């Protein structure tokens, strides 16, 4: 019996051995390496003709801003996009993986991907990793059955909502949505509301910042508005510019073109397979 218990299952499932080792090391005083998180405000809303997704662009590593302009809206399918919050590597990896799976599925079925397909693939993957894959996602897209918007939590639970926010700035963004959302918004109203919600996250949450990315998905078309708003421009650039007052005199200019070195092998053998 004990030998069977020792054998790991041959496929599937997560081996938690290293987690136990990490716990033991932390107890002994080892400092865990920090990882790149995407502090983050991500939002999505359903409007009259489809779905609008929005995200900020700040990636943090603890208290430091690691990337001032990262992309949090990931491509899943031509008609489906996914915003990711949580550990940046996890959101990238999981969305890339499901995107590939969707493509294969499209080849296999010959049809446009459906949002619920992406949803099921993502949630079953995240659930099987029991929350250790720290990816909180807002998945949105338009398929033959209409526009859809879902949130997916790291443990694998999902919600289907008309408007959703995730990430550390989700409360600030949700406050804006709860006070201003209504059904049947036009595209411009929707984009404006999403921008406001993301700005609310950017300015009121320390984990979110920099710029606003937006993605508008409608039936048969999508618009990826990268850096739709830049509410944090770099100010206070010296107007004088930078000049070097002390000039070094040029005494002589000589340009030597590079000569090609070609080795000619006499009577070399041709490559044999």
């Amino acid at each position, binding site marked *: 019996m004990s030998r069977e218990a020792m054998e790991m299952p041959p496929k599937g499932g997560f081996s938690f051995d290293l987690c136990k080792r990490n716990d033991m090391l932390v107890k002994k005083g080892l400092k865990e390496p920090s990882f790149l998180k995407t502090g983050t405000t991500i939002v999505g809303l359903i409007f009259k003709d489809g779905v609008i997704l929005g995200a900020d662009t700040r990636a943090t590593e603890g208290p430091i801003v690691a990337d001032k302009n990262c992309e949090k809206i990931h491509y899943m399918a031509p008609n489906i996009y996914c915003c990711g919050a949580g550990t940046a590597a996890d959101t990238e990896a999981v969305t890339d993986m499901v995107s590939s799976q969707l493509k294969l599925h499209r080849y296999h079925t010959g049809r446009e991907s459906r949002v619920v397909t992406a949803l099921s693939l993502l949630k079953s993957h995240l659930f099987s990793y029991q929350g250790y894959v720290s990816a909180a996602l807002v998945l949105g897209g338009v398929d033959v059955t209409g526009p859809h918007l879902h949130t997916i939590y790291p443990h694998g639970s999902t919600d289907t909502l008309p408007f959703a926010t995730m990430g550390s700035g989700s*409360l*600030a963004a*949700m*406050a804006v949505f*709860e*006070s201003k959302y209504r059904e049947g918004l036009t595209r411009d109203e929707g984009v404006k509301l999403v921008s*406001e919600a993301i700005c609310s996250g950017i*300015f*009121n949450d320390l984990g979110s910042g920099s710029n606003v990315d937006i993605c508008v998905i409608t039936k048969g078309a999508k618009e990826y508005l990268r850096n739709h708003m830049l509410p944090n421009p770099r100010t206070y650039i010296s107007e004088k510019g930078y000049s070097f007052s002390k000039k070094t005199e040029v005494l002589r200019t000589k340009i030597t073109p590079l000569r090609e070195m070609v080795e000619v092998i006499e009577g070399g053998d041709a490559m044999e397979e």
Partner: protein
Amino acid sequence: MNSFDSNPATNSLISSEADSQRTLYPYVTGTSVVGIKYKDGILLAADMGGSYGSTLRYKSVERLKPVGKHSLIGASGEISDFQEIMRYLDDLILSDNMWDDGNSLGPKEVHNYLTRVMYNRRNKFNPLWNSLVLGGVKNGQKYLGTVSMIGVHYEDNHVATGFGNHLARPLLRDEWRENLTFEEGVILLEKCMRVLLYRDRSAVNKLQVLFSLCGIHNS
């Protein structure tokens, strides 16, 4: 996100004798309070719920009270500690009245007094488990401030406690402006309280709103 971890080594030293007399965790709690300055003074809003853990036990708790002639106080957190604070304030106001010198404690003074009380209690590891909002008008000057359970205090044009900080303050930062009329202020506060009702688990749908006017004394 916040790593608020107390050192386990010192805790075991301190918790040796005075455990029974220290507030370790709150029991009956009130949720957020939101306050704004408007043209003529201060507006405070809070709901009337007192939760006992996850049960909504009391639904008519007044968490906003007038203090002295000029100020209003609102509290979130442990209700019994709020009642204790009211007793301290009643004593304070009474002593002030007994001077009978024509001067009365204004909101700035009461705010400072509360800050000292909260900070000193926190230093003794026996905090009053409240986050307070203190506002008022004296001699035409509007004042709105907040004190937390550890003594962090500041004043601003709009303040909130608890969940209000995350849900209401972003809205207030966007939509508050100088010289709101009374009606506009109430509408703004109502918007904040509505969002809190949607998204705060311990919110109830019964509100209390207090306002303080320039030139009008609480009686």
